[in-house]
């Protein structure tokens, strides 16, 4: 019962509160009177938040004028867990942009709390807006809460509507006020203007009057010819000057187009321009000649301007003729001189250009363009750089930059590329043009072709260098000796040759101090000879250098006279030390050669000789041993012993002969002259060398002439020659394996009873290019040869007044021959 009573009293309380709330809500529109729509929304939401004990309340109302909707969110101070951003996010997720489609109830989780949110649409279809109320109470929204929300929504619609109406009324009223004020101001301004205009017009009329008076005065005193024309172009009025100039009546002048008033050459042009202006109404401006009264044509500038009325119609033309004859002539003169200058600049035989003070090239003459093949556009500015040789470009740019700063350009030599790609040397020169303050206003420059000069210079440098090199290579130097003053000039090379210090002058004493003591008399004599007028000096002198070495100098000089007729000696001195030393060495070598040759030849012979001697010795000893054994036999073999003893004697003789010949070979005697049978001598040589020839597989074919005259000479030397030829022939065939190693040796009687010996081999033959050198000492084709055999052989044959020569064979191999004259008055006793 109590409970029920309790419930009932709670219900009553609740209803009371609900009614109070309703009354409060209904009273709101009265409070709102005159408020702005956003204020209305704020107070409504505040009221709802308190009244319904909400955690949050949100409203969104559309602006019927199409502006931004009013959005307001209010959160109860107690609901600290609610963050506005989260609510907006939730609402957006819930709803999207169109509140009409929002669901009426939503449960959402915000933070850790579950919250119920209810939306109440405003307006019949919710087109006005929406109110959202949220609470964490589980029973939210209750019936009364829904009712109160709905009432609040209605009240809000009404309040907002009224507020908007009021706003609109205010706006219209203020617009009206503004327009009235504006119009009033306009009218006042117009009024002012009118007043001013009237005053202006008054003043203008006065001025016009004055101006017309002035105009007439001006027209009559103006130093120009003036006339007016009708819209159709008929001349109607003139100032007196015009009549005076032409010397014509106004009637005559009216027909100017068919008179001589305008120069006949100009007339067609003038008529055309005139007609064009009259028909189109455009101003007219033309220069032509007009005939003065005395018949002289002068240049005038004719200008015509149309005069228009307020409707823009042409009412007439004003024509002014100004005498420009003097100006015209000046212009012509200038043009002519410019033309001259231009043609000069373009035809001078050099490349010319100009540049601005900042280095920008603004002009290049035609020659420049023709030479480089660049167009003016290409070369302008810094485009000209393309014509400069890449190796020269940097230094030129440096100089040019420097010149722009210092105002002075040093002469520069650069290579420029011709249109066909060939580079030529140019000398670049430029000077600045300065104004009265000394400021550079322009650069003018020229490029001069110095290619030929440059090449000549290079050539000169080369030949100078060549000369110096030549002096250096030939170890020669030149000198000049002035006889009157004993002044001596040495070339660089001579300083080096004499090892003189370059700082002190060269004197005869100084030269004398270098000359070898043994040659001082020669020097003294030579100086004497030069002084006494001997004009050709050619001598060799030795120097003793500070380090003790000796130099050989050859001097060739001649006397001459300088420009003033003073005698001088000019000459060259060549250091021939190397050559002299080489010659001395060669001479020594030559004197050694004879001995060397002998020793060498004998060395070659020794083996053969030993062999040949050992053979009879062997026979002797064997025979002697046999003989003794035969005599010791029982009974003694007397006959056998006698036979072996005979053989012993024979072999002994053979050995003895050999030893005799050897003694001759070793003899110190330079040569022995005796009658020599060449056949016999040759056979002996063959006998000596047979075993070696055989060892070399040489097939020897001797052939001896029966009627060979006896020659006079050194038997051993001639045999040496024959041996040498045989050995050479044998050696030449040592590598031959594809044909018989045939060696033919024969003697024959030649013309004038010359005795000839021929050695023909089938060896490697002769190198035609080496034929000349064949008989030179030390020339050899053999790996182990000394190259002296043929040289010595030839000298031996020549000592016998004969001749030694070589010929290539038709087939393989070579033929060596010598011929010697027969013994004078001697009969042939060869057999």
């Amino acid at each position, binding site marked *: 019962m109590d409970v029920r009573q309790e419930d009932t009293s709670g219900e009553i309380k609740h209803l009371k509160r609900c009614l109070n709330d309703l009354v409060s809500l209904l009273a709101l529109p009265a409070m709102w009177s005159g408020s702005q729509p956003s204020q209305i929304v704020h107070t409504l939401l505040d009221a709802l938040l308190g009244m319904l004990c909400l955690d949050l309340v949100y409203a969104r109302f559309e602006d019927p004028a199409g502006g931004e909707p009013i959005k307001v969110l209010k959160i109860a101070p107690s609901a600290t867990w609610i963050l506005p951003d989260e609510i907006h996010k939730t609402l957006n997720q819930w709803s999207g942009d169109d509140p009409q489609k929002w669901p009426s109830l939503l449960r959402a989780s915000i933070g850790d709390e579950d919250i119920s949110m209810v939306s109440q649409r405003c307006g019949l279809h919710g087109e006005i807006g929406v109110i959202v109320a949220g609470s964490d109470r589980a029973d939210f929204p209750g019936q009364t809460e829904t009712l109160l929300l709905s009432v609040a929504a209605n009240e809000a619609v009404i309040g907002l509507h009224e507020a908007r109406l009021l706003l609109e009324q205010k706006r219209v009223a203020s617009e009206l006020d503004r327009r009235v004020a504006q119009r009033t101001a306009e009218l006042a301004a117009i009024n002012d203007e009118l007043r001013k205009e009237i005053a202006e017009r008054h003043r203008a009329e006065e001025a016009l009057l004055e101006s017309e008076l002035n105009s007439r005065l001006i027209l009559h005193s103006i130093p120009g010819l003036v006339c007016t024309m009708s819209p159709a172009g008929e001349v109607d009025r003139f100032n007196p000057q015009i009549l005076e100039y032409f010397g014509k009546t106004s009637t005559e002048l009216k027909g100017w187009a068919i008179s001589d008033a305008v120069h006949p050459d100009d007339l067609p042009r003038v008529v055309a321009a005139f007609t064009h202006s009259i028909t189109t109404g455009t101003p007219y401006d033309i220069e032509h000649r007009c005939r003065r009264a005395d018949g002289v044509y002068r240049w005038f500038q004719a200008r015509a301007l149309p005069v228009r009325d307020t409707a823009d119609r042409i009412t007439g033309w004003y024509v002014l003729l100004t005498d420009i004859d003097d100006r015209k002539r000046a212009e012509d003169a200038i043009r002519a001189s410019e033309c001259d200058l231009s043609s000069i600049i373009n035809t001078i035989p050099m490349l010319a250009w100009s540049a601005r003070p900042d280095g920008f090239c603004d002009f290049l003459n035609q020659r420049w363009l023709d030479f480089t093949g660049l167009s003016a556009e290409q070369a302008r500015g810094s485009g000209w750089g393309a014509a400069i040789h890449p190796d020269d470009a940097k230094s030129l740019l440096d100089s040019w930059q420097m010149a722009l700063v210092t105002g002075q350009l040093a002469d520069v030599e650069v290579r420029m590329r011709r249109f066909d790609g060939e580079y030529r040397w140019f000398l670049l020169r430029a000077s600045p043009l300065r104004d009265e303050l000394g400021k550079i206003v322009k650069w003018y420059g020229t490029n001069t072709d110095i290619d030929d000069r440059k090449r000549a210079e290079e050539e000169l440098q080369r030949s100078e260098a060549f000369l110096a090199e030549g002096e250096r290579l030939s170890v020669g130097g030149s000198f000049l000796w002035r006889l009157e003053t004993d002044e001596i000039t040495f070339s660089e090379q001579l300083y080096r040759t004499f090892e003189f210090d370059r700082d002190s002058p060269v004197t005869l004493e100084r030269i004398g101090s270098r000359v070898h003591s043994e040659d001082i008399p020669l020097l003294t004599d030579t100086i004497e000879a030069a002084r006494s007028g001997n004009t050709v000096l050619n001598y060799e002198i030795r120097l003793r250098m500070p380090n003790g070495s000796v130099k050989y100098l050859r001097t060739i000089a001649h006397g001459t006279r300088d420009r003033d007729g003073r005698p001088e000696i000019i000459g060259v001195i060549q250091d021939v030390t190397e050559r002299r030393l080489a010659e001395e060495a060669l001479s020594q070598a030559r004197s050694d050669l004879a001995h060397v040759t002998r020793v060498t030849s004998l060395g070659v012979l020794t083996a053969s000789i030993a062999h040949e001697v*050992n053979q009879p010795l*062997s026979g002797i000893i064997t025979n002697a041993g046999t003989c003794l054994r035969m005599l010791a036999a029982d009974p003694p073999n007397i006959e056998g012993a006698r036979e072996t003893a005979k053989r012993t004697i024979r072999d002994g003789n053979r050995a003895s002969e050999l030893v005799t010949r050897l003694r001759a070979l070793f003899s110190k005697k330079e040569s022995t002259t005796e009658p020599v049978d060449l056949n016999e001598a040759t056979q002996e040589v063959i006998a000596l060398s047979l075993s070696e020839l055989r060892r070399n597989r040489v097939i020897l074919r001797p052939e001896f002439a029966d009627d060979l005259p006896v020659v006079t000479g050194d038997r051993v030397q001639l045999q040496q020659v024959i041996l040498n030829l045989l050995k050479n022939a044998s050696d030449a065939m040592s590598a031959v394996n594809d044909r018989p190693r045939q060696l033919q040796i024969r003697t024959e009687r030649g013309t004038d009873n010359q005795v000839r010996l021929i050695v023909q081999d089938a060896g490697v033959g002769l190198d035609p290019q080496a034929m000349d050198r064949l008989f030179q000492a030390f020339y050899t084709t053999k790996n182990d040869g000394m190259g002296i055999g043929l040289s010595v052989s030839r000298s031996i044959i020549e000592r016998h007044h004969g001749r030694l020569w070589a010929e290539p064979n038709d087939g393989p191999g070579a033929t060596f021959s010598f011929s010697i004259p027969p013994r004078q008055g001697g009969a042939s006793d060869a057999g």
Partner: protein
Amino acid sequence: MRDEEPRMIPSSLVSVVDDDESVRESLPDLLREFGFTARSFSSAEEFLASEYVGQTNCLILDVGMPGMSGPELQRELKLRGQHIPIVFITANRDEAVRPRVLAQGAVACLFKPFSDTALLEALNTALQVN
């Protein structure tokens, strides 16, 4: 003198091959004095062509000869399976020859001129080898 000398096999044939005539003349007489049968040939080719190659008990051979040389004959005989003891003789006092021919199996190498005893000694060695 005979009694002092070693006994020879009387029938031993010693062939002499030398291009030097004085050797061919003198040496066979001495060999016969020694008690050998002797034959002489002027060249290696002549010896090879003869009927005595197989019968020769010892060969006295000159080193340097035209055509086939002494060492070449030595080689040729070896190739033919004829193992005849060889005593080389040479007039060339070339020290390089001796070791070369000895290495090829020669019994001795005598430089001309040589003594009769030196020759006999060499022949005795040769025939003992045989």
